[in-house]
């Protein structure tokens, strides 16, 4: 079902839930998490693969968790509080779910369709050249593996010439970065020429996008899910107030 959703619907859901989740607490995040796990299953993405792919982001989340958990008192002494640990967990949970949605979008949608949806959304926005912006997104997706590959090659070449013997990390970084940047700029030049050679222009044929009944069902489901925020913010405090004083 997720594969058949219109990319515009997927992007709208991603944007909508990202905004709404700011107010969401545990009930919303729990129900949203269950939905994401079901979606991952339906899209054929294994959680173990997902964790492996975002391992560096998980480290980043851990860093954020640490930053938000440890607070500094008036005497500039850092201390750990259980209350901020709970808040930090909710923040990290939200970020993780947004990343999960992003991964789901990328895994179930062709980049050309994501680009076309982006053009549709940015079309009415004044000043922004939606076609240029969409091309840039496509180029980033294409160019990123090439940059990583070049980085790996340059790093291997430097190690083959005993760069590790240089103790100064700044020197090592400079040696790596200058070569990498020079190579990337040359690649970018060649890339632009290759696009020109194939008649690149902004007026291109875009994939046809169509809304279907599945999109309506998906939006309705997400809308219902968003109601669990009400449970978090209104219903549950009132319930607690009446029953437990």
């Amino acid at each position, binding site marked *: 079902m997720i594969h058949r959703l219109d990319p515009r619907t997927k992007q709208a859901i991603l944007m909508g839930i990202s905004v709404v989740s700011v107010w969401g607490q545990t009930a919303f995040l729990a129900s949203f998490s269950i939905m994401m796990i079901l979606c991952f299953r339906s899209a054929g993405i294994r959680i173990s693969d997902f964790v492996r792919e975002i391992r560096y982001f998980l480290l980043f989340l851990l860093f954020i968790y640490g930053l938000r958990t440890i607070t500094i008192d008036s005497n500039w002494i850092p201390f750990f509080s259980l209350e901020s640990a709970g808040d930090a967990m909710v923040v990290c949970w939200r970020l993780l779910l947004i990343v999960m949605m992003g991964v789901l979008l990328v895994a179930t949608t062709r980049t050309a369709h994501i680009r076309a949806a982006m053009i549709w959304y940015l079309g009415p926005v004044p000043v922004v050249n939606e076609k240029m912006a969409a091309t840039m997104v*496509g180029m980033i997706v294409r160019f990123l593996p090439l940059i990583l590959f070049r980085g790996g090659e340059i790093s291997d070449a430097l190690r083959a010439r005993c760069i590790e013997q240089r103790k100064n990390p700044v020197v090592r970084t400079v040696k790596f970065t200058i070569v990498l940047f020079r190579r990337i700029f040359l690649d970018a030049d060649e890339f632009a020429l*290759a*696009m*020109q050679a*194939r*008649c690149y*222009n902004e007026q*291109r*044929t875009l994939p046809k996008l169509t809304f279907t009944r599945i999109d309506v069902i998906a939006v309705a489901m997400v809308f219902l899910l968003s109601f669990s925020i009400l449970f978090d913010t209104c219903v549950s405090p009132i319930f607690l107030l009446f029953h437990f004083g």
Partner: protein
Amino acid sequence: MTIIETLNLCHEFADGTQGLKGVSLSFKEGEFTVIAGANGSGKTTFLRHLNGLLSPSSGSVTVCGKSVDKDPMAARQQVGMVFQDADSQIVGETVYDDAAFGPENLRLAQDEIDDRVEWALAAVDLTGYENKRPHYLSGGEKRRLAIAGVLAMKPRVLLMDEPFSNLDYPATRLVIDQIVALNNNRHTIIVTTHDLEKVIAHAKRLVVMEKGRVVDDGKPDDVVKGIQRFSIRPPCSVQLGKGILPWVS
């Protein structure tokens, strides 16, 4: 019928180096030409002029009678170029997307794009690879995808810049087979190389460049005899006195 013509074509790089010095050549429709030359002889610069990627410092380039400098887009529709480094030519996120990039730029209808992509991928033996990421293809497959990306635009002329560099034996054979098949289908082919061995037996014409000038031009059998003086290694069969023989049987 002459399809491409250059008249006294000169190119000066930003640092003042003369890349091309008065190159005058014409190419007939359906002709298979090999342009040979040592590194820095101006082969790639020359090809880029034919595709309108560079503008002449002086002189002119015409494709189908139209000036390339005045209408590079029209020239690019007629003249497709396969770059030396296939990695930097592949712009799509999947094999399908890359082959479709050119036709999409030509604003063709989606059905026509699908047909062309299917045909182009079949022509280079990449059917079934549509959803693969180009980054994970082998060197030979990337080169064939680069050819498919150009073929999908249905150009009349195919320019190939060092098409055999970094390819192993089976991949080279496949690329040679495809070049020959395209030429048999009346495509005009212009291949640049410093390694004549692989392709010269199939060419009808051999042009030799040195330091930005055309220094020899004619039938391969005639030109290849004295080619060593231009720092180009003659094919083994020529060195053994057997004339030009195909690299693959």
